[in-house]
């Protein structure tokens, strides 16, 4: 097979089937554990199955550094110019990745996150009060799904929430796949400049937040001001887009599955809510364009050799729909044990913010439908704009009423 004949990745979802991964991807998973695909005209390997994804994502011979030869660019831009969006340690390898990541892990520790739960509950309750007092129908994305994680991550980082329009606009540009490299660079520059100013202000007048904590590292000479701003961009971006999309898309999925909606509407049991969050993460897997790596040294795998300089893609969305790992995988079943899903990735780059994301989603899913039990769509499913074009999947808007 020549490269021109290989299937192109990413692939399109089936029309009218907004929650399932692309059908072609599922066929490939059934056919073979390892498939050659074409990414912007260049070949890359697709690792299709759950167990293999976990094994290889934990393999240090695979690099997350965008400048490694063969790294499959998600935007088609050559690796060097992608460097402009080199948002912190996510695109680095150990030991530098571990060094920087460890500087920001403390606020995301399970017990620190648990300590924030009452504050998050208040944020969610207040926003629901506003919804109930305001006009309907309303766009749930704008009025609820985005503000929850934005308010939380702003508080954690020490970013003034009053600036949220500015950074939401710019971060939207960064996660779209259909913007030009120039637009992407401008958006990144805007955010980096904004965070750099903020870090400067906190150097002079530190508070009790994550960015202020980083200024101590800068003063100690362990971290450059530029790297601190880069980490700020990464955390701000990762902190609100992902969770917001899980809230809105998860709500839509529940509205389409009334018996599952009822599970959350009718419970006050934290264990039920926790389980539901894991299943929604598995089922929706909103990071739908795959984790990307470059091979640093030859790896023998499934009768093939992944050669140094090859690109590898891990579509975790079909990993989470692998029938060998999750029986009847296309069924949304809030009662199943889905905790081993790979929605947050796997290996040393697995999402740093997952304890926070989980807690926010537990509060949201455990509160919203209980408080608004008659919640329903206020538009036809076909009219809802889905984010096929973004690196995070979800909806651009979700009109609801009750």
């Amino acid at each position, binding site marked *: 097979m020549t490269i021109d004949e290989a299937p192109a990745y990413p692939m399109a979802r089936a029309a009218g089937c907004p929650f399932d991964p692309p059908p072609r991807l599922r066929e490939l998973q059934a056919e073979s554990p390892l498939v050659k695909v074409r990414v912007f005209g260049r070949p890359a390997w697709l690792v299709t199955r759950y167990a293999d994804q976990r094994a290889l994502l934990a393999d240090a011979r695979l690099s997350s550094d965008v400048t490694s030869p063969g790294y499959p660019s998600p935007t088609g831009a050559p690796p060097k110019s992608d460097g402009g969006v080199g948002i912190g340690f996510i695109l680095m390898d150990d030991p530098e990745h571990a060094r920087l*990541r*460890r500087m920001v*892990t*403390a606020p*995301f520790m399970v017990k620190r996150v648990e300590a924030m739960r009452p504050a998050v509950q208040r944020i969610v309750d207040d926003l629901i009060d506003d919804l109930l007092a305001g006009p309907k129908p309303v766009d749930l994305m704008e009025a609820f799904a985005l503000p929850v994680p934005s308010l939380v991550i702003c508080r954690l980082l020490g970013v003034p929430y009053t600036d949220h329009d500015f950074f939401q606009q710019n971060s939207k540009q960064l996660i779209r796949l259909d913007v030009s490299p120039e637009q992407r660079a401008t958006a990144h520059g805007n955010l980096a400049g904004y965070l750099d100013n903020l870090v400067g202000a906190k150097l002079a007048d530190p508070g009790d937040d994550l960015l202020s904590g980083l200024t101590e590292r800068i003063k100690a000479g362990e971290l450059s001001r530029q790297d601190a701003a880069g980490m700020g961009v990464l955390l701000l971006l990762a902190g609100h887009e992902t969770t917001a999309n899980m809230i809105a898309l998860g709500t839509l999925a529940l509205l389409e599955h009334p018996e599952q909606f009822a599970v959350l509407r009718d419970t006050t049991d934290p264990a039920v809510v926790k389980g539901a969050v894991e299943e929604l993460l598995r089922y929706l897997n909103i990071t739908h364009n795959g984790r990307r790596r470059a091979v640093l040294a030859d790896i023998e795998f499934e009768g093939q050799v992944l050669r140094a300089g090859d690109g590898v893609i891990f579509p975790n969305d079909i990993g989470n729909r692998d029938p060998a790992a999750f029986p009847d995988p296309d069924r949304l079943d809030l009662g199943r044990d889905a905790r081993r899903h790979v929605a947050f990735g796997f*290996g040393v780059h697995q999402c*740093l913010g997952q304890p926070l994301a989980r807690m926010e989603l537990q509060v949201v899913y455990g509160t919203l439908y209980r408080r608004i039990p008659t919640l329903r769509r206020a538009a036809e499913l076909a009219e809802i704009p889905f984010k096929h074009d973004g690196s995070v999947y979800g909806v651009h808007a979700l009109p609801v009423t009750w």
Partner: protein
Amino acid sequence: MKVIVDQDRCVASGQCVLAAAEVFDQRDEDGVVVLLDENPPAELARDLHHAEAVCPALAIVVED
């Protein structure tokens, strides 16, 4: 049962704490795993094997 953790590999994801808070904790400064009990009771086997399986850094080994 015997549990071994590798603090150098740990990426502080906290999955082990979520799986078995009786046995795992995280260091205050950087979230790196702290083993509270090297020889936990056998009743915890399921939770411990779950922790071993979900640790993204493969930093946990559980021996029955």
